[in-house]
């Protein structure tokens, strides 16, 4: 165990204690530890590895929604939806961003595989939707062209 792991688990446990004490979150339902390795990963391959996704299969049952051309890279509406059964996790990855992973969501039973958010994109890039259904990973891609980057000053 290295120092980073010690710090991470330490602060996570402390947070859980605080939240539990405040009655916001019950023990056992507390937030999962932030997946630092996945969010720090720079390339698509590293990110997929950190998420434990390996090499996901392309699937027609996974959709990425978003504009074809985004005028402002700082605010790009992106959605992920899937018709696959038993979807437990969805993630949004942007290939050419400094860190590929933008957001990931854990979907408990009863929550639909349909999540929308807004992301920043530094430049024109493929946007990947990663979906975990029945323990397997699936992926879909959409290219979004950016005319004004959202990561610069």
């Amino acid at each position, binding site marked *: 165990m290295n120092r980073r792991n010690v710090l991470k688990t330490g602060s996570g446990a402390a947070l859980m204690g605080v939240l539990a004490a405040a009655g916001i979150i019950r023990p056992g339902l507390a937030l999962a530890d932030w997946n630092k390795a996945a*969010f720090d990963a720079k390339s698509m391959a590293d990110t997929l590895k950190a998420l434990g996704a390996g090499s996901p299969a392309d699937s027609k049952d996974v959709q990425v929604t978003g504009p074809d051309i985004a005028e402002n890279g700082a*605010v790009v509406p992106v959605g992920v939806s899937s018709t696959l059964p038993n979807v437990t996790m969805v993630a949004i990855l942007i290939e050419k961003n400094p*860190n590929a992973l933008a957001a990931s969501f854990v979907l*408990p039973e009863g929550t639909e595989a349909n999540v*929308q958010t807004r992301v920043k*994109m530094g430049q024109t890039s493929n946007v990947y939707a990663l979906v975990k259904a029945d323990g397997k990973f699936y992926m879909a891609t959409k290219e979004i062209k950016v005319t004004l980057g959202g990561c610069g*000053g």
Partner: protein
Amino acid sequence: MANPMKIRAANKDGVTEVKVLISHEMETGQRKDANGAIIPAWFITELSAKHGDKVVLQGEFGTAVSKNPYLAFKFKGGAKGEKVAVSWKDNKGDSRTDEATIA
């Protein structure tokens, strides 16, 4: 303490759609200020939504999520008058919880 979230929750045909607008800088840690110094990253890392006692969504954000993040999702169940609560935590340890009534 951060500004309140705007949360809308509406039930239609047994499915509740939740829309959340969070007020947060979401600084990437890649921008520089006028003096060329890097502005430190400041962003939401974790987020969760609950319907009553049941967790309906858990999210993890990276720095690529836009300033003042928007999030929309749907879950089965929920009825008019019931509460949906959303909590987030950022990398500086700040956190906030807000709740809304399903319409």
